[in-house]
């Protein structure tokens, strides 16, 4: 039985906490801004514009993907905090289904990630990238799906993580490789074959690819999207459902 009220209140709690912790908001926003303005501009002068695209324009879809990746993983890691500080017990002994806990966390994480992606989108005019209203709406729509997928993945990991010590391992062995193997910073096609196979296992690859469909509309590989948009969206949605179900199952497990 999945009730709306517990999902709603779990979401509200996350929003309250997110807005109270200004440092977290600042931290997750600082990273892509740094990349776009500092690294992007630096590389821009080094790499000649390719078929009408600057490097800055190329990494822009990837930077939205990166914002979502960090924000979503960070949101879902809050489960580990909740467990460490005991609050998880308050939810686990309540007469609510485990699925509503997982859904509450997934939905709140998605909202927070999408909000941050929108903030990045608002900065686009400063980078010389001009989006149409339609593109803006499309990016937000794709961001919702990608955020939900990554948050679900994070929840599944957090559900299995027993202490906060594992957090650094997750950052170094999962989040960073996911970023570097997603085509966010350089085209997937330019990688050695072994790494290319890994990119195909990475859900973020399809997310970034979908963003490229919307933002680099006329580009072709290696800079443009590699897969079809419908394929991207289907894979991201499928991974979300699998992750979410597994996460709910691992919550249900009692000793």
């Amino acid at each position, binding site marked *: 039985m999945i009730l709306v009220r*517990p999902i709603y*209140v779990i979401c509200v*709690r996350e929003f309250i*906490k997110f807005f109270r*912790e200004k440092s977290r908001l600042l931290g997750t926003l600082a990273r892509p801004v740094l990349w776009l303005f500092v690294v992007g501009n630096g590389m821009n002068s080094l790499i000649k514009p390719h078929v009408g695209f600057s490097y800055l324009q190329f990494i822009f879809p990837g930077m939205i993907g990166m914002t979502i990746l960090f924000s979503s993983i960070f949101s879902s890691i809050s489960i580990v905090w909740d467990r460490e500080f*005991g609050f998880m*017990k308050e939810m686990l002994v309540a007469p609510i289904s485990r699925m509503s806990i997982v859904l509450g966390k997934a939905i709140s994480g998605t909202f927070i990630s999408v909000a941050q992606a929108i903030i990045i989108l608002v900065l686009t005019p400063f980078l010389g990238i001009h989006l149409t209203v339609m593109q803006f709406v499309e990016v937000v729509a794709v961001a919702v799906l990608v955020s939900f997928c990554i948050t679900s993945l994070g929840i599944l990991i957090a559900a299995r993580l027993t202490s906060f010590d594992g957090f650094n391992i997750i950052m170094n062995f999962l989040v960073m490789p996911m970023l570097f193997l997603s085509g966010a910073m350089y085209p997937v096609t330019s990688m050695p074959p072994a790494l290319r196979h890994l990119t195909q296992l990475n859900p973020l690859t399809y997310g970034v690819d979908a963003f490229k469909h919307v933002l680099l509309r006329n580009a072709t590989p290696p800079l443009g999207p590699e897969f079809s948009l419908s394929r991207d969206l289907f894979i991201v949605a499928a991974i979300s459902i699998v992750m979410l179900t597994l996460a709910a199952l691992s919550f249900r497990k*009692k000793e």
Partner: protein
Amino acid sequence: MSVIKVQNLSKQFKSLKAVDGISFSVNEGEVFGFLGPNGAGKTTTINILCTLLSQTGGSAEIAGYDCAKNPDEVRTAIGLIFQDTTLDTGLTAYENLKFHAYLYNLDRKLTERRIDEMLGVVELLGRKHDLIKNFSGGMKRRLEIARGLLHYPRVLFLDEPTLGLDPQTRNTIWDFIDTLRKKEKITVFMTTHYMEEAENCDRIAIMDHGRIIAEGTPARLKGTVHGDIIHLVTADNQLAREVIRKTFDIIAHEENGGLSLETERGDELIPKLIHALPVPTLSVSLKKPTLNDVFLRLTGRTIRDEGLQNNKEITREFVRSHRRAQR
């Protein structure tokens, strides 16, 4: 009518049998205490009763619902206060309570009134919109009690409710529990290893190594220890023990570097004892039996003893202090 029914309950963790076939029942409106040293299986039992753990044998029932088969019904019927705080320190007192009300699907109109009512009882109404971060340990505990009772549970579980609190706060918490009990007519199930706390219970089960070794009212359990307890330290405990056995026909137990004996009229025996002993007496004390003595009698250990190592150290401490005293 019994609101908690436990039959032959056991829990096996890999090689450890944490709970070993315990049975008991708790009546409606009772304060029932689980007493025992750390690691006796008290928390494991509570975790099974509140559906956080599944048992490996036997059955547990709360308010007529099986803990394993109907977890949601059981969860609605119980309120919990855990050993460690489970409040969100980043939220205010009001937000923590409101969160709880939503999880338990409490009526919207009722919620606001109930939150104020419970905050009033635990005397935190003035701190309603303060962050938990700025609360003291005792205030957090009080708020948790208010939260545990918010959804009108039939049974309130308290796992070591006053652990780590100073004695004064501990007394305040007990006053609150007493007030609430009268006001809300609920059953209280608690675990503790503080003897003084267990005395507040209507009925106690003493647990050790996963088993219940005694059960009854505090008065009845204390009645199993005969009369007063004399503890004395002499220059030669072994010799003194022999003499006491021969002269007074009382078996003395060695305990904490001295001798401990039970007798009917302790105050009258002390002068006779000192007179009869051929060795100098270093110290004598007389006390009325406590639950600690009941536990000691049943297990041969005091409840705080963690093992032999600890015992030796206490003995050493005793010897040292006596040497110092003799100088």
